[in-house]
């Protein structure tokens, strides 16, 4: 009988022993830190649209005023870094590709346009390309950080495709420029 009890205890011990290391690994703690739960990230733009009307081939268009056309305001309570990103312009199935290098000579048979921004008080005529890749907004080659309640102004320049295929004539192409903010 004694042997039986010892065997049962041994069996229970065997059951428990392998499970111990697994239980220890379950005790890891996850910490979620919401850095300042009350931090709010918010920017506003005082312009929403840029209606160019009818445009011609291979022509440059600038916002009016050139450098202070749109104001970005930091309405949150943390300093932010700014980013910018462009898109292809479209009308139904028609597309103007957004240039990656400032050229407008087309991609295959698809017309290509280019877009730039100019930050107010940057050196005159200094424009930076807007591409499909989101990049930080720069002034004088330096990334822009916008302090709380601070403002920054910019203007845009557009170069239309060097030629419009017949099916593009009279079509209203639409695009978007996204201005982004992230905690600095």
């Amino acid at each position, binding site marked *: *009988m004694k042997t*039986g009890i010892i*065997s*049962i205890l*041994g*069996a*229970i011990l*065997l*059951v*428990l*022993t*392998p*499970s111990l*290391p*697994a239980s220890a*690994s*379950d005790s*890891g*703690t*996850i*910490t*979620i*830190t*919401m*850095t*300042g*739960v*009350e*931090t*709010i*990230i*918010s*920017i*506003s*733009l005082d*312009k*929403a*649209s*840029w209606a160019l009307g009818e445009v011609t081939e291979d022509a440059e268009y600038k916002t009016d005023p050139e450098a202070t056309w*749109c104001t970005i305001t930091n*309405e*949150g309570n*943390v300093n932010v*870094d700014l*980013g910018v990103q462009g898109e292809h312009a479209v009308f139904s199935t028609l597309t103007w590709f957004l240039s990656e290098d400032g050229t407008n000579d087309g991609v295959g048979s698809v017309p290509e346009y280019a877009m730039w921004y100019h930050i107010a008080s940057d050196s005159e005529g200094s424009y930076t390309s807007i591409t499909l890749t*989101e*990049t*930080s907004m720069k002034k004088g080659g330096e*990334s822009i950080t916008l302090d709380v309640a601070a403002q920054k102004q910019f203007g845009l320049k557009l170069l239309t495709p060097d030629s419009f295929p017949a099916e593009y004539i009279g079509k209203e192409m*639409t*695009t*978007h*420029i*996204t*201005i*982004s*903010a*992230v*905690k600095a």
Partner: protein
Amino acid sequence: MSPAEVRIGGLLPGEEAVFELTIHNHYDAAHTFVLSTSHPWERRPGRADFPDDSWISFSPQEIEVAANSQGTVKVTVAIPSKQKWADRDWEVWLGVTPEEKEFLVVNCYVRLLVSTGKEAQAGPNTGLIVGIVIGVLLLSYVVYYSRRKAKSKHQP
């Protein structure tokens, strides 16, 4: 949007973390906002790019927020149970954009900084299962042996 930054630490592969984001609609009309992940144009020092956006989910993915009001979105970060994802430091951004876009669009990002723990979480507890099987076998043997012994004692 708030908070501006979320740090998750000690998340073991195989585990998930859940937190909430608040979206403030300062406009005078209701707006639908779309949430998405994005890869940073610059990361915090020592942080690598987040390996797979499908590990992050939003509930809901789109949210309508009434004028001058706010809404809440639940974010879940689930790391697959593979040891190779242990002890990593990643950064990914969570973006909120209005569904209806004009020419100029505003996009706000929350910085999400995820650090995983050193040990991968065991999936099914294989140690426990093997232990139970061995225990049951031993117990059966003990019962069988005791009965056999008792039987042989009673036999003349």
